[in-house]
């Protein structure tokens, strides 16, 4: 049996008295696209950030390629091949597109920077057109592309995406998910956190549904899309 790329084992997480995660267990296999669906405040972002130990779980284990990273430094995890496009995009507003991308090389150094920069511009031609523009002047969709590209600059094996569709127009969301589909087809392992269950589950091999810090359901993307509970809670279906 092969080791999952990422695995959560009974993870609890607290912010002071507030418990954000309860006994969370999940796994992401190499090459898979897995999504985590949940309403606002369910604990999705906390789960992603706990991979970098910010904050650290109060109980349980997080494993990356079989290695227990629960107590490892954020840098160790990032340079080991985990990258994140954070919630709300969080591009560096006063830096140009190109500078933002260069910042993405911090975990691994600049040895491949030039080559990777060109790969990113091939993947996101829109970013190349705007390479000297300040990031704050980009549209929401372009900023999301930049956040993803910045994460890819550290040559990750596992790409974490926190609500990439947040606040974007439907047509732009489609573009973003097409890009994710292409990335997945290229072999990237993607762990996607979304409120937009429809898009996310269609893209994903498997999915988890999180409610109040607990995993409520899991299954393949299609199973979850057909699940009545998911349909009523996240898809506005009847």
């Amino acid at each position, binding site marked *: 049996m092969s080791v999952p790329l990422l695995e959560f084992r009974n993870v609890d997480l607290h912010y002071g008295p507030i418990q954000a995660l309860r006994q969370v267990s999940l796994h992401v296999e190499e090459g898979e696209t897995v999504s985590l669906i949940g309403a606002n405040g369910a604990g999705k972002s906390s789960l992603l*950030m706990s991979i*970098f130990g*910010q904050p650290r779980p109060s109980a349980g284990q997080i494993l990356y390629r079989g290695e227990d990273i629960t107590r490892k*430094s*954020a*840098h160790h*995890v*990032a*340079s080991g091949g*985990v*990258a*994140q*496009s*954070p919630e709300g995009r*969080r*591009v*560096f*507003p*006063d*830096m*140009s597109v*190109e*500078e933002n991308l*260069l*910042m*993405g*090389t*911090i*975990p691994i*150094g*600049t040895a491949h*920077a*030039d*080559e990777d*920069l*060109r790969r990113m511009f091939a993947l996101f031609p829109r970013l190349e057109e705007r*390479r*000297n*523009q*300040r990031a704050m*002047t980009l549209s929401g969709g372009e900023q999301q592309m930049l956040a993803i590209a*910045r*994460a890819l600059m*550290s040559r990750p094996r596992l790409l974490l995406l*926190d609500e990439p569709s947040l606040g974007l127009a439907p047509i732009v969301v489609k573009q973003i998910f097409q890009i994710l589909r292409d990335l997945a087809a290229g072999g990237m392992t993607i762990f996607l956190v979304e409120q937009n269950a429809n898009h996310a589950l269609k893209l994903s091999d498997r999915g988890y549904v999180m409610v109040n810090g607990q995993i409520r359901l899991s299954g393949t993307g299609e199973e979850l899309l057909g699940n009545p509970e998911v349909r009523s809670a996240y898809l506005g279906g009847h």
Partner: protein
Amino acid sequence: MNMPERSSLDIRQPLLDSVLAGLIALVVFGPIVGVVLDGYGFNLQPARVAWIVGTVMLGRFLLSLFLHSVIGRGWLQRLDGGGAGVQVLAPDYRSRLRWIVPLVLLAAVVLPFFANKYLLTVVILGLIYVLLGLGLNIVVGLAGLLDLGYVAFYAIGAYGLALGYEYLGLGFWSVLPLAALTAALAGALLGFPVLRMHGDYLAIVTLGFGEIIRLVLNNWLSLTGGPNGMSVPAPTFLGLEFGRRAKDGGVPFHEFFGIAYDPNLKFLFIYAVLLLTVLLVLYVKGRLIRMPIGRAWEALREDEIACRAMGLNHVLVKLSAFMLGASTAGLAGVFFASYQGFVNPTSFTFFESALILAIVVLGGMGSTLGVVLAAFVLTVAPELLRSFADYRVLLFGMLMVLMMIWRPRGLIRISRRGFAQRPGVAP
């Protein structure tokens, strides 16, 4: 600028501007210039106020008229356009200013042969502020942590030399690294409690830290001599002293080398060591900026949460900025103390912190060359224009306002360099 295109000259806007400026001038100057105290009464002097307000209104009108003309609009556009994009420099980019660097170096090497003692001391002071500016530039300019108590680390360096000599018998050379180390530790000490703070709160806490250090130095009479200060030993070179006669029957520097005694020798020596230190700090900083830690500082300045999402340990990033900045100030303090020959707390007031901050802001947040230039402009210029010294603060104020309008990112914009294309990689 979203100025609507107007072909004809519009007179209304300039008139409006001028009336507004006149009103402001009336409010500001009216009580100050128009009411003159005379014993226990006062006279009104409306004519003087009218003159000033009239001048302001006319000036504002003409300025506004000019800025609305075609040429003026062109100007505004050009000034404004400077902030729109940010350029990453090509890896082989050569700055147009690059000829300045060897010129400045040459001047720095030649200077001691021509300078008199006064010029030499002025330049030493300038270099000390270059060090301070470079250090604070890491904290404020790169890492974006507004530190208003930076002078505390400068004081730690300076008093480190004085106290080390007084109580431990240490000299210039042994204190130099120790001061950098002590200041770095103090930086970490300050850094820990303020890790969670941002912006205004950080500024206030650091301001308090600076004042605490100064007050301790001022009031711990038995240790520091309080307001009277402490004397500082003159530096030595391989144990040779620079005085006319060495203490304890040693051989002074000039006798050892068989040259004539020169009272400037001490300053020449400080200048030489200081110049080397500045060059070393410049080199180290240049290296650091290109290393991941330099990028991490800038990422932290731009967005702390993004930083953490990138797997950066913001604690380490912040602490390293604080510590490196502090240790540079510690070095500067040692030079300052040796140069003055004594230290007292009045050299380490908040005004000093503000001056160093002004150097960083004026030089362009994060820009090294800008900081070097600004340090000299703000410290050497007032020295050379002694008669103008009273207006120094006014000059700062005006410079700052002008900067905010035209160069909000400093005299010299920071620019990053891209990476060299490696041969064999297809474009």
